[in-house]
């Protein structure tokens, strides 16, 4: 199982390297420069999504753990979780807006 996971991770690393290789091969002098803004935008969205995903996962895990320990505090925990999830989602939206403002 661990071996197959390692093979899979190696495959994904090679595939991601190939994604970079395609625009690199397409370069021909100064006529078609690499669009670094688009690449940076993709990376920033990926990082923001990953951060928000981790944040939402941690918030949900903590809330469910707290609920299981103390079910009588359900109202407060639920309220805090909803607000937290909504605000975390808005962080990814901020990134998306900035990307749309910069990449045209």
């Amino acid at each position, binding site marked *: 199982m661990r071996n197959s996971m390692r093979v899979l991770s190696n495959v994904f690393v090679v595939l991601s390297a190939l994604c970079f290789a395609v625009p690199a091969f397409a370069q021909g002098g100064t006529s078609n420069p690499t669009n670094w803004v688009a690449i940076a935008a993709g990376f920033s969205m990926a990082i923001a999504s990953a951060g928000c995903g981790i944040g939402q996962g941690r918030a*949900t895990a903590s*809330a*469910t753990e707290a*609920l*299981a320990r103390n*079910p009588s505090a*359900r*109202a*407060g*925990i*639920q*309220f805090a*979780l*909803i*607000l937290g*999830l*909504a*605000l975390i*989602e*808005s962080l990814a*939206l901020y990134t*998306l*807006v900035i990307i*749309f403002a910069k990449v045209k």
Partner: protein
Amino acid sequence: MTSQTAPAGDDFYSRALERIQKIMLVLGISALITACIFFGWRIGMGFALGATIAYLNFHWLKKVVAGLADLTIGSGTPVSSRGVVHRFILRYFLMAIVAFVILTISRESLYGLFVGLFLPVAAILCETAYEAYTALVRKM
């Protein structure tokens, strides 16, 4: 003093989510009228769509969290965990489809859509200000 104010305070804070949804409605309608008057109907239409998605998103988020709490505690009507996950993912699909459609139709509307998507944040900020004001004035 404390024993009298505590239940009132609990009741006040337990209705915060309802208040946030009402604030979203009020803010959305007033901002839609303002956008249509000052920026044109295209941006207004984008804002209306964004605000609708944000409102639905918040409503579904509330339902998903309630379902999750039911699952964790084991109370209420039993809900399927698959349904909870599907609803959670469906929200993102809806947002992506609407954004794509608007992007292909009009770019101006997209800016309105983005502003509309931030409606819950504005409503939460208003609720925070209201709670702070109430805490200061009524000593809750």
